[in-house]
């Protein structure tokens, strides 16, 4: 296992984050390889979402360092960090209004305009047709919202894309659609992807690399195949479904 800088898009060094006295991220040290898909698994409450919020700068660690693309997160302007490290959530929160309004939002925030043509290209890219552009987000299915949410995050051209259980509430077909989409994005643009999933099969099939977190700690990390044959006893129990 190597931790050299030029191979990692994102690095954690002794990161601690607590809510009052309760540690939620408990001394995490590790890295996410550049340009790869890393899957992040662990029982619910392990601190996975919190880890993402730390990377995107929505919260700050109590201590330790987080290094994004070779630079400590404190050296970024908050808005710059958040554009560099894009975040898409299971909830796929939409702003009320049209799909176009949602896709434009990242540029609107910068005082720029997203041309309809570019918006349509994005929609086609995520597997939705141009007819979706003027649709109201209220009329979208879960899978369609998820695609719009991913496309919206991509508008910022992030170097790192954080995906938090984006397929968890979707049916089989939409799930495969999105898996294909993420692989395509990863192949094409060298975006580093970190994907939280509770589907272990998905974690192995999609991931190049995998992190296993439990109770705020990084228990194991390495090639995704590690999940097929875990060394650590807790990871073994988790993989066998004994820990939810």
């Amino acid at each position, binding site marked *: 296992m190597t931790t050299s800088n030029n191979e990692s898009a994102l690095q954690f060094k002794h990161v601690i984050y607590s809510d009052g006295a309760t540690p939620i991220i408990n001394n995490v040290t590790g890295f996410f390889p550049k340009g790869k898909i890393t899957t992040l698994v662990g029982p619910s409450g392990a601190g996975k979402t919190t880890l993402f919020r730390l990377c995107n700068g*929505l*919260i700050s660690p109590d201590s330790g360092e987080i290094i994004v693309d070779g630079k400590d997160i404190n050296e970024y302007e908050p808005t710059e960090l958040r554009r560099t490290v894009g975040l898409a959530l299971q909830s796929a929160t939409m702003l009320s209004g049209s799909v176009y309004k949602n896709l434009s939002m990242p540029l609107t925030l910068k005082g720029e305009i997203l041309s309809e043509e570019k918006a349509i290209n994005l929609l086609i890219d995520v597997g939705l047709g141009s007819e979706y552009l003027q649709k109201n987000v209220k009329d979208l299915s879960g899978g369609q919202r998820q695609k719009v949410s991913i496309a919206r995050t991509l508008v910022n051209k992030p170097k790192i894309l954080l995906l938090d259980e984006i397929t968890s509430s979707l049916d089989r077909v939409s799930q495969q659609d999105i898996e294909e989409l993420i692989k395509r994005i990863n192949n094409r643009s060298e975006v580093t992807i970190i994907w939280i999933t509770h589907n272990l099969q998905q974690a192995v099939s999609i991931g190049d690399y995998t992190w296993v977190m439990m109770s705020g700690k990084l228990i194991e990390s390495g090639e995704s195949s590690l999940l097929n044959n875990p060394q650590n006893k807790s990871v073994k129990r988790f993989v066998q479904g004994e820990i939810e």
Partner: protein
Amino acid sequence: MNFLGLALSLIFVLIPIVLSRTLNLGLERDTIIATVRSIIQLLAVGYILTFVFGSDNYIYIILMIALMIVAATQNARKKGATIQGITWKLIGTFIFVEILTQAILLGFHIIPATAQYIIPISGMVVGNSMVLSILFLNRFTAEVETRQDETELILSLGGTPKQAVQTSLITSIKASLIPTIESQKTIGLVQLPGMMSGQIIAGADPVQAVQFQLLILFLLLTTAAVTSIMLGFLSYPTLFNKQMQMLKIREDS
């Protein structure tokens, strides 16, 4: 009206108390407290005003306005307990609104610079500013709470705190202004405004009373708009820290 008249007017207090007792509404205690408080407070104000009008000293006018602002702040701050430093933001807003309105009224000689005019008008301005603050704070804290996901979404896409709370802010400012504007549309049709009624009963020329009432109405439009907007722009930054992160909403009051 003399004190006998005032004493007899207590009949109007007895009626709701008897009704409350009969129907078990449980409102007797509050009704009595409200009555006693209003008697003491208003009589005290009456005597204080007599003194201030007689003394012709600006210090007393300023003192009275300060007192109004303290009382208004005391009332409104509970509604904004989740906003840091709300007490000072309210005081700042009330002072600003008061100075702005008086500067226009006195500067253009719309009213004479005497206690008789300044104090009642200040009372209405500060009182309305207080009501508007309460309306605004109620709505704003609720909006911020229900729109947390949206706020964090905008932050996570690279938005600034101001952009992230803009919808909450605008919605709350608008919502708090609507009652003032709406009530002016029907004014005079359903009921005569209290101040105007009072003046007419006291023997003033109705047209003169109307002119004054109009002045007050227009004044309250400014009061309402300036209060909500100023309080809004003072309040929203306290929801975020320097790293543009949303602070946890404080649960304590």
